């Protein structure tokens, strides 16, 4: 299967063409303000570089930071009406309660708390207030809000009230965009509601962005299926992904790590992904990033998304280095590296200039850094080396030596030898590992549910079946689906051997 993987980063857009296990070509171009033209550039260049005919492609997989950046930078967000079906429970902590105030001021629309919701065992907490819901729907229509987030207590176990509420809402206000919390997963009302609110708030940007991607493909004569990558190293059909922009949060680092695994043929290793501004260090386990244990904040909002466990260092190709006193970072010239760094004719001393002066890489005009003081260069290299070595050590989970895969545009900054590391591997196409990761992404399905009154084996099997069906719906070839996670948790103080089961499967795109 022939496909293109693209990673649209803040600085660069990387693209790669893959056929089966073969990389046919890769390119790196600057990201543009206007989404379409940047992706068009990347597509044209990579097709040319790999000598690929547009009509021979089966799929295009795009990883994008648009949605994460929109939340982080508080732009392109829609105001959202929050509907929570919970009363008489959960009244004291209303929607947006733990949001940073600057973000809440932008996103918070009307808030409606309605009677209803479920107990953990499926019994109603109280009868659903349908009249109240209809009233809320009318008032949302007259207020002109375009996005609505619906969250009901224990909806991951039974979604019927959220579905009913959405139905009433669309009867009264057919033009609004609705996100229902059970479609985003996990138990934990506040965090799930937060993700639902963020998702609703990104709906217009998501529509615009996926339209721009489709337009870019058409402009290049590509009619292949478009997928967007998610934070767990899998992809979703763009038509589905457009409804769930929050799933793409932090897909960049995941793509880099998956790409590093693919390029190095290693499934257990530490990955150092060095870009223009930062080096992200993560741990690969069975070919997937190890996930962070703690709750993940997006733009200051608490969510339950699974994100790769990363340690970020302020070291990249554009990192500024000063001499007296010797200081590496944290400031960087970022995307202005081609203008501002010394080897490229600028006046600033960056990590790239130091690497060129030390002979670690051949870039720009080495003559411009030939007169750098030898001791200064040696000291600066040593400082970067020890920062990276320390970061690698922090991410290690075992005492034994592990391999390090160095990827990203600034991979040349990673020293050849690091204490506690068996070898440092630089791979071909490593500078576009993130695009490679996007190109090889699979699809997944997940289930997180409480089971009662059936045996543990039955519950595990049922959860697995649900996850597999979800993966099939997302486009997985049933014959390739495999289980990657199956976890059960008996619940304290609950009757009938209550068991919470979480299952996750992945499969190749069929």
């Amino acid at each position: 299967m022939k496909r293109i993987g693209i990673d649209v980063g803040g600085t660069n857009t990387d693209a790669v063409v893959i056929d089966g296990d073969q990389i046919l070509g890769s390119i790196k171009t600057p990201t543009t303000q206007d989404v379409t033209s940047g992706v068009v550039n990347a597509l044209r260049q990579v097709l040319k570089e790999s000598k690929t005919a547009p009509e021979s492609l089966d799929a295009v997989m795009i990883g994008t930071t648009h949605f994460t950046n929109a939340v982080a930078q508080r732009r392109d967000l829609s105001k959202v009406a929050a509907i929570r079906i919970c009363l008489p429970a959960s009244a004291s902590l209303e929607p947006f309660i733990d949001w940073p105030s600057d973000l809440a001021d932008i996103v918070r629309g009307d808030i409606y708390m309605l009677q209803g919701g479920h107990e953990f065992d499926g019994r109603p907490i109280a009868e659903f207030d349908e009249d109240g819901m209809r009233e809320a729907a009318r008032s949302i229509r007259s207020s002109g809000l375009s996005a609505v987030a619906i969250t009901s207590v224990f909806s991951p176990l039974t979604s019927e009230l959220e579905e009913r509420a959405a139905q009433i809402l669309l009867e009264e206000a057919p033009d609004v965009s609705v996100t229902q919390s059970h479609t985003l997963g996990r138990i934990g009302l506040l965090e799930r509601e937060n993700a639902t609110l963020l998702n609703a708030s990104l709906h217009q940007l998501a529509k615009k962005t996926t339209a721009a991607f489709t337009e870019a493909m058409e402009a290049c004569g590509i009619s292949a299926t478009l997928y967007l990558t998610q934070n767990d190293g899998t992809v979703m059909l763009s038509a589905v992904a457009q409804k769930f922009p929050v799933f793409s949060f932090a897909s960049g680092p995941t793509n880099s790590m998956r790409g590093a695994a693919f390029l190095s043929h290693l499934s257990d290793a530490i990955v150092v992904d060095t870009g223009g501004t930062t080096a992200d260090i993560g741990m690969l386990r069975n070919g997937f990033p190890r996930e962070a244990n703690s709750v993940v904040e997006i733009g200051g909002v608490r969510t339950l998304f699974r994100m790769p466990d990363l340690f970020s260092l302020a070291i990249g190709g554009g990192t500024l280095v000063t001499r007296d006193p010797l200081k590496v970072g944290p400031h960087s010239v970022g995307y202005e590296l081609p203008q501002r760094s010394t080897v490229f004719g600028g006046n600033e001393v960056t990590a790239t200039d130091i690497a060129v002066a030390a002979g670690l890489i051949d870039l720009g005009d080495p003559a411009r850094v030939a007169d750098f003081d030898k001791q200064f260069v040696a000291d600066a290299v040593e400082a970067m080396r020890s920062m990276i070595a320390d970061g690698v050590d922090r991410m290690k989970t075992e005492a034994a030596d592990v391999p390090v895969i160095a990827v990203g545009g600034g991979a040349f900054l990673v020293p050849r030898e690091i204490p506690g590391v068996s070898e440092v591997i630089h791979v071909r196409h490593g500078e576009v590992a993130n695009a490679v990761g996007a190109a090889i992404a699979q699809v997944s399905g997940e289930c997180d549910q409480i089971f009662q009154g059936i045996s543990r084996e039955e519950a595990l099997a049922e959860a697995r079946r649900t996850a597999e069906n979800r993966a099939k719906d997302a486009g997985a070839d049933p014959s390739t689906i495999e289980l990657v996670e199956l976890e059960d948790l008996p619940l304290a103080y609950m009757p009938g051997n209550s068991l919470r089961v979480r299952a996750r499967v992945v499969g190749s795109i069929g």
Partner: protein
Amino acid sequence: MMEPREIKPDELEALALGTGILGTGGGTHPYLELLNLKKLQREKRRIRVVAPDSLKDDALVAEIGFMGAPLISKERLPDPSMLSRALVSMERFAGVRFSAVMSSEIGGENGLAPMTVAALHDLPIIDADPRGRAFPEMQMSSFVIAGLPLYPTALADVRKNDMIIAKSQNAGWTERIGRKLCVETGSVLATCRPPRTGRQIKDSAIHGSISRAIRLGASILDARREHGDPIEAIINNESATLLFDGKVVDVERRTAGGFVRGSTKIVATDKREGSTLTIDFQNEFSLARFGDEVLAMVPDLICVLDRATGEAVGTETIRYGMRVAVLVLDAPAALKTVEALRVVGPKAFGYDMKYRPHSGYKEKCEVV
């Protein structure tokens, strides 16, 4: 009553971290309760703490806490008004007027939740509790150990059901009946235990619980601010022993008798590299051992903390691969008497062994 001390907004985070640790695995960082407290403070409600010794002997105190499954509160978010209803219904039933509030257990969510009621009713909260940690059952209380009854007990659900257990044969029956009511109404109930007098609290409660929680949390926050090691900070400031530094390699859980039972194995990453510590749990961590050699047991506090952040790790959240530090904090003296051990000692948790205080094992643990 001595002048109460007002808890400042910036002390709440320390308090939450500390109550998480004192939860000994039965609860973790009580984030939602912290949000409730912050909201009350924004509404200009006061959280005032007062020392037990400053209570008048005949003062009546409401002993408040939730009972039930922590997971439920992640969906049916904890609401101070539910606890408030339990307090009011007890005042009506017993014909009393409370002059202060006390937590039913300092460990976990219940370390913070009673403060919300205290703030709502503008009552002070006593710097004491009857457990000094978290325990799975209602009768595991220093008041019960001292021979005081566990009735009447008021319970309130999320709807408008207010219940009273007017009298019970013994404390164990209050637990059994309460547990049935709890499950039927959705597995979380607000409770107000029998009114306790100032005298009873002075004689039988565990003093300084809130201060201890704040101290624990503050050690962590100070260490984080100075980029120091939070675990080391706790050891330096508390009578705590670092039992083990390691990585979780196995977690085995099952439900038995309505409780989460199981064990976790942790492999050392420190100088005892390769050796394995096993910790049994029954909602809370109950016993720590190297093979057959027991190192710590209930009622001593076995606390598993995230190695990097110092935050408490719970028996429901502990997972393979976590880097953790295992600390043992000495149990309060009131939990170590012969009478107390019958209720909260190893035998009460089904271990056929005599309690030996952790301090007796210390030399074996190579105090770091």
